[in-house]
């Protein structure tokens, strides 16, 4: 069986594409980069992949708001083929700017079906500024093939607009009930929830990553692809980001 194919969508301002390619390839996939404009010209390219991934970066400068311009382009020119690609059972991954794009475009959390934005947002960090720091994350869902419950990941966050906010308490409750809250920032023992800097941005309920109701579309603010080699962790305590990609590749092998 050939290696699962990962297509990584990039455009002007994408800048975490190389490390995402590396992560998926180390996990056993075959990853390739595709420019958004090339997909707009030939949307069928999306269906050649087993996994679609939206990397981090500052697409279009993050002008207006992070991911906003990319999301408008997706919705205006590529929404139908993208939704079809998801419906057909592909995995979708968005990290940092990629997560912001999926939320703005309505693919996450997509409580009432994909393509309807407005359930949640990624707002400015409470500190009102970009921050790069290492955080600990814990898997809190059984729904999402990317991250099983109980998984602990250490990796950096690097963003200015990563505060997860649900439209209202009902939205967050429904997400939790369905298992759509996949990753939370993990507090050290004895530290109350929501404490900075363990929760680096003020996210509600310490939410760091979420999935759609199918579990296959997954987005998160922290960067697991930046902890995949032995020297990545500042305390040399293991490349705990790599299993995220291994889980996805294994899932594709099992379900293809």
């Amino acid at each position: 069986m050939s290696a699962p194919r990962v297509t990584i969508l990039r455009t002007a301002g994408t800048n975490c594409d190389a490390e995402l390619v590396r992560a998926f390839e180390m996990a056993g996939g075959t990853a390739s980069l595709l420019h958004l404009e090339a997909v707009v010209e030939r949307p069928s390219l999306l269906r050649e992949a087993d996994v679609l991934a939206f990397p981090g970066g500052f697409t279009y400068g993050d002008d207006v708001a992070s991911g906003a311009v990319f999301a408008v382009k997706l919705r205006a020119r590529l929404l139908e083929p993208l939704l079809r690609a998801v419906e057909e059972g592909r995995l979708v991954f968005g990290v940092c700017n990629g997560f912001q794009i999926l939320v703005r475009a309505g693919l996450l959390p997509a409580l009432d079906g994909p393509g309807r934005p407005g359930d949640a947002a990624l707002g400015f960090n409470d500190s009102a500024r970009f921050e790069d720091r290492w955080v600990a994350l814990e898997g809190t869902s059984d729904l999402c093939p990317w991250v099983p419950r109980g998984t602990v990941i250490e990796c950096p966050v690097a963003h200015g607009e990563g505060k997860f906010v649900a439209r209202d308490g009902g939205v967050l409750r429904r997400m939790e009930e369905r298992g759509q809250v996949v990753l939370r920032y993990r507090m050290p023992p004895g530290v109350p929830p929501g404490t900075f800097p363990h929760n680096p941005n003020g996210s509600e309920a310490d939410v760091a990553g979420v999935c759609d109701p199918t579990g296959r579309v997954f987005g998160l603010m922290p960067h697991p692809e930046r902890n995949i080699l032995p020297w990545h962790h500042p305390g040399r305590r293991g490349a705990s980001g790599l299993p995220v990609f291994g889980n996805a590749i294994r899932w594709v092998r099992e379900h293809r």
Partner: protein
Amino acid sequence: MGTRPGRRDPRGEAALAVLRESGLQGLTAVRFQGVYLVETAAPAEALRRAAAELLADPVLEEAALDAPVRADEESLPVLTVLRRPGVMDPVESSVRGALRDLGVEAPSVRTGRRYVLEGDVEPGAAAAAVARTLANEVIEEVHRGVDLPTRVPHPAPFAFRRVTVPLRGASDDALARISREGGLSLEVFEMRAIADHFASIGRDPTDAELETLAQTWSEHCKHKTLTGAVTTRDPDGVRSYGNLLKETIVLATERLARPWCLSVFVDNAGVVALDDRHGVCMKVETHNHPSAIEPYGGAGTGIGGVIRDVLGTGLGARPVAGTDFFCLAPPDLPAERVPKGALHPRRVLRGVVAGVRDYGNRMGIPTVSGGLFFDERYVGNPLVFAGTVGILPRSMVAKRARPGDRVVVVGGRTGRDGIHGATFSSAALHQDSERLDAGAVQIGNPIEEKRVLDGQLRARDEGLYTAVTDCGAGGLSSAVGEMAEGLGAEVHLERVPTKYPGLSYAEVWISEAQERMVLSVPPERLPRLREIFAAEGVEVTDLGSFTDTGRLVLRWSGEVVADLDLGFLHGGLPRRAREARWEPPAGLGGPAPEPADQAATLRALLSDWNVCSREPVVRQYDHEVQGGSALKPFAGARGVGPQDAAAVAPLETAPRGVVIACGINPGYADHDPRAMAAAAIDEALRNAVAVGADPDRIALLDNFCWADARRPEELGALVRVAEACRDTAIAFGTPWISGKDSLHNEFDAGGRRIAIPGTLLVSALGVVEDVGSLVSMDLKAPGSRLYLLGVTRDERGGGLLARREGSRGGAVPRCRPEESLPLFRALHAAIGAGLVLACHDLSDGGLGVAAAEMCLAGDRGARLVLTSVPFEGPEATDGALLWSESTGRFLVEVAEGRAAAFEGATAGLPRARVGSTTAEGAGARLLVEGLRGAPLLDEPVEALRAAFLRRLPL
């Protein structure tokens, strides 16, 4: 658009804090809003839809069209900051593109920030406070009230008229006037050489020719002082140099003849071998004057420029890391000590940090290393250094344009940005600079540069061009003029795409609009090159061709506007030998300060602006993008320890990498510039070696910033620094591979001269085989041994404590390479063999500060015994042992089980066991036993950390 009621508004809260701090009374809250002025014929309904889809987040924000976001704003102070017309707005093009996707065509979009002030605020004071703290009136205007100007200027096209400048027969006074009024920054004897040249060919120069000469002959481009002839007189005798740079810094590199130096002093950046297939290059630039006037844009375009330097090295290197260093006045300087025309250092700090953040982060280049140095003398001339490290295949280090190649410019459009940047940086700033030199302000667009980078590296790998140069200072005039050297070129300036109509041919030619590269492209490869850049959304323009005529010919719609002899352009600059002198500064001497309370001194030093945590700055930089980071800026489980150096592994999953470090000691320059330079070199090397770099694989870069090197006494100091660079580098065996100077950094505060201290920033670039073997500086375990490597002498002169106390006493640290180098080698071997748990270099604040930093980083205690410290000199005192800044020293943590092996690895060298690590966590303390055996200080590590975490006001 603004934040919905009930949602948190972090940008409004940040503005509130800034305005309160500025002294604005009565303020209770600030609402932050985004403003978009859209010129369009689209119906209101379409715009409303676009605002909801694009401009406002559906959960967090609300939008209003042609009205305030909320009704109560009609009666509140509303202040809107808009860019002045004609100032580049990088947001415009992405907003226009996204509006087009939503069916709204907009010929122009202006974007702005709005602050709605709540509380009992006096409107006039509010407007003034916003203008002073949240806007920069050089490039922005502040509007009061909810209504905004909607008139959009659409300038007329340029009406061609060739301008010649009558130089022939002009008197010296007239030549001086022409240079001054034209902003040419040329001296009379240089103007005279130009006049004579044109007299010999029987005509006057055009404005474009004169500008080309001024740009090419500027201090910024030609380094006339450093490459010039000089005779100096100082206590060491009389020395003459024909070319100071060649006979000092370059000479050191030539004499060392390291085989791993692949390209030095010939290209944008120096290149050394990384492995058999790759080279690694580095360049550090200054962007001082633009940052003094507009810190955000100045620092951002400084980063953008040095990234293009690396893109223009060889056939183009891929940037893998960035560095930044700022020298500023203290951020808490009382406002009355800031001279008129200068910005408060806190504003400068905020602006330059934001500029580096927004440019570097958007480019996806990790900012991994750097620093801050505070001294009040930088108040008028902040120094902003920016560096980039890149990698390229070794087969692509050489480049050469050929006759027949097309002259191709790629990247952003040309506007009036930054006209006269090269000559501006070669003149002094003064109290009216803020007003007069706004034209020199450049605005960056990092996403444009990212597109160029993505396209250029693809074109490079397909071999589509023969040479490349960045458009930096002097714009096209410098880039094309440089590439055409030894060849010739013919350029059609009307083809250059402009941001707006109305630019004259001369403006097009010298504009310093950012994000442009010039390529020489064989004609048959141009179609494929166009295809690649088009896929990235980058404009490609064929301007003309390289020739073999030896002439630089410029045309505007067929009319010749310049026809310059390239031999004269590059070789005609007349040289004038300079006189220099140096004497030891007066008023030095006496003892170093001897504090009575060592514990209080330690806490004070840890919270000194020159020591305290850089987290508020560095955390704003993405230092890990690209996934190569192997040693972060901060060490330890809490992520607060100041690391000595950064490491990056840029080759996919391979462990080979580079270590990047720097050294700077302007405080020592007040005692002896030579000691200052040597100590900076030692510090840069020490920092690199402290993490495990191999001292025999380190290359150095120099950046000189001087107040006014035309003054003989300052030139004399500069000569001593250059000599120290030569001697110290040779002694360490570390070649210089690149450098840059900025020699006009003084401020005229209405007749009072404010001169920066002589400043040399040394950057070190080390190649390591395995980044996994490097060590961080945080203490790792209880019960380990602590060793001090290196000899301590009573060298507190010019050091951190002396500067705090305003003391000019004590001896300045001397660098002793013959002592340091064997230690560096032994330490490198010990770290490589896995014998070292943690290592930290001793620098500002000496042993006391270094030990405290290792404790607070590792959250562990330590016990130090000063009687064990190897000391040389007439009389050791507790103060000397704790605070002396003698070079070449490290504090090393070694596990008990490795102690014998470590002692074997360092046998015969100045090394002593000075203590051990103790408890961890809440009970951790740093205990230092003094010479009399009693505890000198016994401080909880938590208290030391609290002192160290004094927050830089950002």
